């Protein structure tokens, strides 16, 4: 999120695409509905499904799954055509606008209607709403990201906000709602395979920086890897790790995967679950660290599972990072129950047995405070330098002194600081940055320009040269340079450079322009590409996907070779997945809660009344849903108008059944969740993002029949 949940209260327009915040982020609706009521802000909801959020919308746009980029580019084009774009903002702070504009010109209202199914009048109305209600916020979630063009979708959202000049202002911004209270924190410390913590990447310099922070020898670290190549090679992703075991797609790793550790991770949230299950039954070792015996444990039919009971969040403590980049201290409420151990203890036991405890705990004498301190010392790129445990605790203890609208403390021990020190919080005295890229405030008071990440100048393919630094006269108040400036050399690894920059009133990462044209992406400007499994074979030729990618996070990933126009004949219905408000993620915790299980006891599929009648299915009937990959699930039909006549919706929280068979007997005695059901992801389709490899669960195909 560039802004914060609370800042949505200042929005004059709320544009939500691919988000069902009413179910996934109920508390955020407090701020959204406040803006809707107090500011008269239109609430525009773009979604293939009439969600509980759409019920609160002033404008609901039903869109064909997987065509978000086309719709967004259509909006951008319509806004530019009508001269509603923020010309001054674009002149001073945006790069590649002309190149983007040429691409966007293709997406006329007629073309957009053809691709997305959104009537052109509605596109025009939405564009006008966006143009006449500024600042507006753009909010999205997994409905935007979980596509094979997810990265293009997200960029199209960003470009829309740049064109409207809604970036860096209160009430504007691109706001991506993260899941639970520490998803942002998990991203920041990068529990991912492609980078070291805080987005440093895997280059030698990155390793050396972190080795310095950890106080270990880089050569020693290197020696832990199979070969030098793997030190810098991106690993498998969560979406496709199981290919490292079953190798149905060719892998580029010296060995297949033999063991897997699920540490607070629900396997049933990964697509093509039936293949993942195959991997579970082939692995030598499956370790599950969780407060609950998860679906994963029940699915393993081979005797290869170890369950390590960990504590819940209430039995341990530490810092967590909210969706709005704010840190909070989560205190312990009760001592660990039964034989469960905290994650820290489990990690310590592992480290001791692996024999590098001396190195691992070099800077850590007291858990978890020293861990937070180490993160603060290392994560300079996102400015976690000011996140000292004492400060975070002080904020949490004095939360009542902060203003609900501005998040700033008025008086008290945190006077002038923003709640949770939203990063970047550059130094021990920095108040945090509540709104990213806001040049109305001095950098030392929470202001920032756009980052000058990609140099100072670029020559586009047509020969046009453009400066990548902000225009003269545009900088934060108090900046020594009133205009664009490049990044300070060495700021990512040396806190003193950051201090120096701040002393001069400047941002350590420079004052650049936001790019509409990303030359390092396969599509420099986002373009529509039909889903791999497209229900519109006639459009595949015009909007084909990418060529196959042979080494995509160590596994061959099909794009063009997977896109078959004839597939829709056999699998005529579109399959999308999403959340229910009663359950969370894989549901291990919530399905084991009797009250939540009482409210949402059963797995179901939402089916439109026409589809149901065509297939002879009545409300509550069991039906089979089959995927092109051979996955099939038996679920109850819920007949509803929420979905349209070509779409099936599945909630993905369930587990404990597999292709019609109950696995309840595989749970430890007396620990069977109250609510069991087929995992929706057994039938989610093949398809992964070209850059991040996120699974494309919101654009598959399926067929149904009465069970």
């Amino acid at each position, binding site marked *: 999120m560039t802004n914060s949940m609370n800042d949505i209260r200042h929005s004059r327009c709320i544009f939500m695409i691919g988000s069902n915040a009413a179910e996934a982020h109920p508390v955020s609706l407090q701020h959204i509905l406040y803006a809707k009521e107090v500011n*008269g802000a239109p609430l525009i909801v773009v979604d293939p499904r009439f969600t509980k959020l759409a019920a609160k919308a*002033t404008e609901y746009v039903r869109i064909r799954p997987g065509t978000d980029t086309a719709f967004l580019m259509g909006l951008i084009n319509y806004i530019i055509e009508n001269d509603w774009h923020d010309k001054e903002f674009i002149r001073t702070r945006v790069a590649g606008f002309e190149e983007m504009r040429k691409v966007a010109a293709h997406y006329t209202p007629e073309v957009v209607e053809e691709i997305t199914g959104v009537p052109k009048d509605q596109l025009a109305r939405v564009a*006008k709403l966006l143009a006449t209600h500024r600042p507006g916020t753009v909010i999205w979630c997994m409905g935007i990201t979980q596509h094979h063009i997810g990265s293009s979708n997200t960029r199209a959202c960003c470009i829309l906000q740049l064109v409207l000049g809604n970036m860096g202002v209160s009430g504007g911004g691109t706001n991506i709602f993260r899941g639970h209270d520490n998803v942002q924190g998990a991203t920041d410390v990068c529990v991912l395979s492609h980078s070291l913590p805080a987005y440093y990447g895997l280059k030698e310099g990155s390793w050396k920086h972190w080795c310095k922070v950890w106080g270990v020898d880089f050569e020693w670290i290197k020696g832990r890897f199979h070969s030098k190549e793997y030190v810098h090679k991106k690993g498998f992703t969560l979406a496709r790790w199981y290919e490292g075991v079953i190798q149905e797609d060719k892998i580029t790793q010296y060995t297949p995967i033999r063991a897997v550790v699920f540490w607070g991770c629900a396997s049933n949230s990964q697509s093509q679950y039936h293949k993942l299950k195959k991997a579970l039954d082939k692995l030598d070792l499956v370790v599950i660290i969780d407060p609950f015996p998860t679906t994963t444990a029940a699915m393993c039919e081979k005797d290869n599972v170890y369950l390590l009971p960990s504590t819940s969040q209430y039995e341990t403590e530490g810092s967590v990072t909210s969706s709005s980049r704010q840190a909070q201290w989560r205190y312990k409420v009760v001592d660990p129950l039964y034989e469960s151990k905290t994650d820290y203890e489990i990690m310590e036991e592992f480290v001791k047995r692996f024999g590098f405890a001396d190195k691992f705990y070099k800077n850590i004498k007291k858990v978890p405070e020293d861990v937070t301190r180490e993160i603060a010392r290392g994560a300079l790129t996102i400015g976690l330098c000011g996140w000292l445990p004492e400060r975070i605790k002080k904020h949490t203890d004095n939360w009542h002194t902060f203003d609900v609208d501005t998040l700033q403390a008025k008086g008290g021990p945190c006077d002038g600081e923003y709640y949770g020190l939203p990063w970047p919080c550059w130094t021990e005295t920095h108040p945090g940055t509540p709104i990213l890229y806001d040049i109305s405030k001095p950098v030392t008071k929470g202001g920032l320009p756009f980052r000058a990440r990609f140099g100072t100048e670029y020559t586009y393919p047509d020969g046009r040269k453009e400066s990548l630094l902000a225009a003269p006269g545009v900088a934060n108040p108090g900046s020594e340079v009133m205009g664009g400036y490049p990044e300070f050399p060495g700021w990512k690894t040396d806190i003193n450079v950051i201090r120096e920059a701040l002393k001069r009133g400047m941002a350590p990462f420079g004052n650049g322009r936001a790019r509409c044209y990303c030359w390092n992406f396969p599509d420099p400007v986002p373009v529509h590409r039909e889903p791999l499994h497209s229900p519109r074979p006639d459009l595949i030729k015009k909007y084909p996907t990418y060529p196959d990618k042979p080494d995509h996070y160590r596994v061959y990933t099909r794009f063009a070779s997977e896109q078959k126009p004839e597939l829709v004949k056999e699998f005529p219905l579109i399959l999308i997945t999403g959340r229910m408000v009663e359950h969370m993620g894989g549901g291990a915790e919530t399905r084991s809660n009797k009250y939540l299980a009482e409210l949402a006891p059963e797995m179901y599929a939402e089916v439109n009344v026409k589809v149901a009648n065509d297939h002879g299915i009545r409300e509550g009937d069991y039906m089979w849903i089959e995927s092109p990959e051979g996955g099939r699930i038996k679920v109850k039909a819920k007949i509803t108008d929420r979905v349209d006549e070509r779409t099936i919706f599945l909630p993905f929280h369930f587990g404990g059944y597999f292709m019609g068979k109950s696995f309840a007997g595989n749970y430890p005695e007396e620990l069977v969740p109250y609510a069991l059901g087929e995992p929706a992801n057994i039938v989610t389709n093949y398809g992964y993002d070209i850059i991040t490899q996120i699974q494309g669960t919101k654009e598959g195909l399926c067929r149904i029949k009465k069970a």
Partner: protein
Amino acid sequence: MKKALALGLTTVLWPVLAAGADILRPYGPVSPVEVFRKLNGLLLDAWPDEGRAFMEFITSFNVYYLYLALGLLGVFLLHYFVFGPRKIVHRGEKVPYYGFFTRFVHWGAAVSMTLLVLSGLAVLFAKALGGGSLVMGLRSVHVGAAFIFVIFAVFLFLALVKDMFPAPYDLKWFLVLGGYLSRRTRPVPAGKFNAGQKLWFWVGTAGGLVMFYTGYKLYQFTAPVSYLREVLKIHLYLGLAVLGLFLIHLYMSVIAVKGALQSMLTGYKDIEEVAVMHPKFYEKLRLKG
């Protein structure tokens, strides 16, 4: 006061908020009036039509039971002292009247029925008993007794039904009120069972089954609320009839007709009694020899 009124039915329509009003119209406009109406339909259900009437019914119905019980008590006393119990001189000759099975199911039904009546009255007049766990316990007795009663009632029905069909002379029996309003003993028009017994039989068994069904619905308590209200009404009205006949039966068999209780215990009736009280049946016996 005004506040509450203004709030109670605030149905202001969407106002024109800004100049661009046409683009601000709500998606899928649904008038607040319609929302109000739908919520009423879903949540209040039949309450607006039935609620008040139900409240009046339930708060005033207990007294009917009281009136009935006290009224009957008065009638019995009056009858006892004015006409006295029926005593028939007997010479000792006895005829078999009730088989063992009949007596067994009769007493099974009688005991469970007595429990039902007593526990039912306890629920109705719970306030006098102070409510709480005592009455809650008696409610459980009511439920338990009902399951026992219904089994006996079915067999009692099967055992006696062949003699319980209405006959033309039953009307006459009612006209002379079974001859009970007289000190003199004269034959009354009745078969093996008189019209009063027949009435009691049908109310007790068939009515008992209705009582069981309605009671079961109230025990389950899962039916729609307006159905429950109806069911409760039936249970209470029919209960009134059962109570009345139960008390009359009790008075007649134990006090008013000497020997009646004895015959249900032993199975034999005095021949004279049969001749007077059940002459049609007596003729049949005589024909048979």
